[in-house]
């Protein structure tokens, strides 16, 4: 049995896929890993490149070609087909640190925790720098029981797709099925399996390299506005998951998924209150969502009153009061320039 299945979602990444595969096809661990690449209706040469790797490593590399269904659909396929004891996602434009990855797979062979977490870093090429996301509050190789664990110790609030390796059986048991043709489904991936997790272990290995080549790749606020319907769909899923599980799971697990939901709610309100330039439309849409949240669950609704811009805008019924006086606007502009 393979110890690890690496699912590589592929969509038009012919320029990056070799880097991704080269970093994991390492002679020391070839027999221990399975790489499932899912070409999600790629129109470029990605599948042809993967076929070359498949020919060279027939016992390790699998290529599944399917019609476009979005990132979530590739993960759904991967979970179904995986034969590895553990399961990890590696996006085809990202890669791993090979040295630490070898150590990781070797350690994983003796592992039995439900989840293994590690460190990762973002490669911000346009700024010529890296940003490390290290779990500095966790101890290397320590087995943690999630229900007894202080979740405030988690760096960046939660374990992300980039640093999480789940037991495949846990993923299946959780019934995780990500939305298809929808953005932001990684949030589903981050919370649903956690409901089934009892133990996790931290490996102090810096593995995942999250590649951000352009500034707009990470910070494009317009993308949030454009894909706001997807954001809302996933948002509602998270809220409903919280509501459904509040009394079913341990307090710790609930607080964990509530925290993720709160973080996403912050972004969701920001899309309308800050990023969306068509304020009339924004007002219409966010009022509807705000009513949905109020009707759905008062606990989470009240939590969002901790967000200043949400609380203030609620008071004005999301009218987004703005300065219309041209003179004051000009003055503000000059002050901004001077400083």
């Amino acid at each position, binding site marked *: 049995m393979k110890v690890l299945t690496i699912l590589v979602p592929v969509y038009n990444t012919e*320029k*990056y896929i070799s*880097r991704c595969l*080269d*970093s994991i096809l*390492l*002679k020391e661990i070839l027999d221990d890993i399975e790489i499932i690449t899912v070409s999600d209706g790629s129109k470029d040469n990605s599948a042809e490149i993967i076929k070359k790797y498949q020919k060279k490593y027939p016992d390790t590399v699998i290529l599944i070609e399917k019609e476009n269904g979005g990132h979530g659909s590739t993960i759904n396929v991967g979970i179904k087909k995986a034969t590895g004891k553990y399961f990890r996602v590696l996006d085809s434009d990202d*890669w791993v*640190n*090979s*040295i630490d990855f070898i150590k990781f797979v070797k350690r994983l062979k003796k592992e039995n925790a439900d989840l293994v977490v590690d460190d990762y*870093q973002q*490669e911000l*090429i*346009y*700024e*010529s720098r*890296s940003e490390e996301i290290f779990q500095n509050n966790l101890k290397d190789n320590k087995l943690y029981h999630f229900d007894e664990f202080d979740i405030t110790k988690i760096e960046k609030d939660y374990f992300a797709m980039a640093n999480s390796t789940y037991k495949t059986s846990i993923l299946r048991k959780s019934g995780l099925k990500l939305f298809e043709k929808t953005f932001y489904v990684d949030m589903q991936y981050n919370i649903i399996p956690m409901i089934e997790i009892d133990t996790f272990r931290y490996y102090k290995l810096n593995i995942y*390299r999250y*590649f951000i*080549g*352009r*500034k707009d790749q990470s910070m494009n606020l317009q993308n949030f506005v454009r894909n706001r319907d997807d954001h809302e769909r996933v948002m509602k899923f998270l809220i409903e998951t919280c509501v459904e599980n509040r009394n079913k799971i341990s307090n710790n697990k609930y607080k964990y998924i509530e925290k993720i939901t709160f973080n996403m709610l912050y972004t969701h309100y920001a899309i309308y209150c800050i990023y969306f330039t068509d304020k009339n439309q924004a007002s219409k849409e966010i009022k509807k969502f705000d009513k949905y949240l109020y009707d759905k669950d008062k606990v989470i609704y009240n939590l969002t009153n901790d967000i200043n811009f949400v609380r203030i805008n609620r008071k004005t019924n999301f009218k987004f009061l703005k300065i219309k006086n041209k003179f004051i606007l000009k003055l503000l502009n000059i002050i901004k*320039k*001077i*400083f």
Partner: protein
Amino acid sequence: MKKILVFSWFFPPINSSEGLVTFKLLKNSKHKFDVFTQKNNNLWSYNSEEHSLTSENVNRIFAKSDNLKSWEKEGLEYYVDNSDKYDVIMTRSMPPESHIIGLKIKKYNDKIKWIASFGDPIANNPYVMMTTSQNSPYSCKNRYKNGMGIRWIVSPKRILKNIIWHLDYGRKQKKELKKEQILQKEIIENADMLIFNSTYQKNYMLKGYSDDIKSKAIILNHSYDKSLYPAVSKKESKKLKFTYIGHLDDIRTPINLFKAINKLYKNDYKLSSKVEFNFYGNMSNNDKLYLLDNDLLDIIKIKKPVDYITSLKIMKESDYLLHIDANLSSVLGENIFFAAKLADYIGSGSKIIGITMLEGISANILRNLNALVLSHSEEEIYNYLYLIINENYNINMNKNNLDFDAKEVAKIFDKEISKYVK
């Protein structure tokens, strides 16, 4: 066969990429060329030792002057005195003064056919945009970098200085940019044929121009000349030899490569017995200091600049050739600069590792040749160096690279000339 007068400030014996590119093209063309150049000024720290680079169809005329302004004047006078000898004139930048001569000649004789061949863009050069600081030293944006205290931040003196800086700098910048834009526009509109080295460069420089203007443009790849490479027998060495040849500075910097090597070195103290990195040519003091500070001189060696033929020999002898472009991601979505050295690397047949922007001309060329294309990420470079040194990662370069063979490129050049000049 036509007689063509070429104006190029740089040309062998001066060792400069601009001159060498032009030389290889002309040498392989079927036409005859007189190249009006100079050998007194090796501005940009080029040496002038390329005496072996001569060709029967290329005659050089050396100006007496040693500065651009008088070279421009002398060039124009030469043409006026000899105008009846030539069917075509060709001007090659950088620097752009050769095109200024072209403009003046066109005004003097509008019947003459003029080919303008571009090196870097004259206006809105992304490389220059990177080097020119857009931020005032008095701006609060730099408060962390410059360690501004609260008193200095709120000080009226700072605010006033900031306003003055913006007024003065903005005026100077705008004036300079306008001048460059006007010059570039005049060249593009008045020349009969425009030569660019890639579609990326063409699209960047001809953005917003009419189809008529765009139809004057042709793409001529930088090229290698097989006949110039000396024969070498590759020595069997235990060490993998990585080589960089060419100009480096604070913008086109190898710092991420150095950091990656440093990281490898710290994890593998035997690294110096496995690999060596040789750098030929200019390098910024900051990068040299990094090597000193991190005790990397055992593994990364800075060599003296070499002449062109020797550089070709070194390329053939190397296991891996390193190509490094500037990271212009903050000002440009794709790299538009096709470094001439890359063509020589390709001609050498050695394996190439390109550290470049993942979109753009270098990445495109290298991908088509199945070379290794890396971003400027220190981590990515580190990982691939590890794979090459420890995991026997292999780069299988395509052997079919005729698109960059000077003979093939010159054929396109000749064909285009025959279209324009009956």
